[in-house]
C-alpha cells in the first residue's frame, strides 16, 4: 500500500503534476514525520522548524531521487538527519520538560487500567532514554517498521538496532514498574 502511494507520488512528480505530487506527499507523510521529529524534540515549535526544513529538503531532493532505496525510508532518513543535526546545534533539550504543556493524554480507561495514566507513564519513561534509542523505539513501536527498514533509515546495523530496541523496552518497563 505504502509503496503504491510512493510510486504514485513519484509518477505525479515526474509527469510535472506538482500539485498532486505535493498533496499526496503531504497527506501521506507530513503527520508521520511530524511525530517522528516531535518524539525526539518534544517541543512543537522546534518540531515545526525541523519539519519544515525536512519537507523542503524532501521536495527539492525529489528530482535527484534515483529509487535506490524506498521513498519512505529516504524520507524518514532525511527527517532523522535533520532532527539529530538540530539536536547537535541546540543542546537545550536536556532541560526540564513540562508534561502538561507538551502533552494531552486521552487514553481510554478500563476496570483495571487508567488509559490516560499509562500513556503518561510511557511518555515519561520515553523521556528517560537517550534520543537515538527513542528514535529506534518510535520507528519500531509506533511506526511498526521492520529492522531492515530502520537500518536503512538510521544507517545502523540490524543487530545494533535490535539491541537498542530491547534495551529501550527494558528501561521503559522498569520505569513504569518502579515509579
Amino acid at each position, binding site marked *: 500500500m505504502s509503496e503504491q502511494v510512493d510510486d504514485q507520488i513519484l509518477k505525479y512528480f515526474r509527469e510535472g503534476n506538482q500539485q498532486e505530487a505535493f498533496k499526496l506527499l503531504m497527506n501521506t507523510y507530513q503527520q508521520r514525520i511530524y511525530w517522528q521529529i516531535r518524539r525526539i524534540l*518534544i517541543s512543537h515549535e522546534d518540531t515545526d522548524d525541523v519539519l*519544515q526544513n525536512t519537507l523542503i529538503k524532501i521536495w527539492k531532493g525529489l528530482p535527484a531521487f534515483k529509487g535506490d532505496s524506498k521513498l519512505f525510508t529516504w524520507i524518514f532518513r532525511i527527517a532523522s538527519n535533520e532532527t539529530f543535526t538540530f539536536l547537535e546545534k541546540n543542546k537545550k533539550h536536556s532541560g526540564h520538560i513540562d508534561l502538561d504543556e507538551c502533552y494531552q493524554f486521552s487514553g481510554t480507561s478500563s476496570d483495571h487500567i487508567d488509559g490516560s495514566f499509562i500513556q503518561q507513564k510511557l511518555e515519561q519513561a520515553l523521556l528517560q532514554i537517550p534520543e537515538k534509542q527513542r528514535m529506534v523505539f518510535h520507528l519500531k513501536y*509506533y511506526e511498526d517498521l521492520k529492522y531492515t527498514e530502520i537500518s536503512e533509515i538510521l544507517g545502523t546495523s540490524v543487530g545494533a538496532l535490535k539491541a537498542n530496541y*530491547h534495551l529501550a523496552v527494558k528501561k521503559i518497563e522498569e520505569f513504569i514498574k518502579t515509579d
Partner: protein
Amino acid sequence: METFNPHKDSFENNNSIPKQNNFKIPEGYFDELASRLEDQLEIKKDSDKSKNGVLRVLMINISIAAAVVLGVFLFNPEKGTKLSDQISKMEIEDPETIYVEDYLISMVSYTEDWQPLEYYEIELLPVSEEEVLEIEMPVVDEVTSGDLTDFFEEEDYDDYEL
C-alpha cells in the same frame, strides 16, 4: 522447543498501551503547514498550467490562421501552379534552346486563365457639348512625315536584339 523471549509479557507484545501520540498540537496545524509550504516552494497549480496551455494552443492556432490568410492574399496560388504547369508542358527539342514562339504561345494561353483579382464599377455620367468645349486641351504641334523619318533615322537599331 519454546524460544526464549525476555519481552514475552512486555507491553510491546500484549498491546496494553495503545500506540497513540499524546502531544498537543495547534488546531489546523497540518493544513496550515501544507498551505505555507506550497507557497514557499511555489508549487505550480494544475489549473494555472492547463489555463496557460489552452492560451498557448489558442495563440498558436491564431498565428497559423493569420499566416494562412496573409499567404492567400499576398500570393496567388493559381498563378504559381499554372506557371509551373506551363513551363513543364513546354516542349524543348534541344535542351540548350528555348524557342521564342513556343514560349510566347504558352504565355498567351497562360494569361487566358488569369482571373482579375478585383472588379471595379465605373459610373459614367453624361457630358454636355458645352462642357467638352470648355476643357482646355494641350497644344500639340502637327507631326509631319518628315519628322517621323528623322525620328527613325536617328534611332540606333543595333541596340535591339531579335
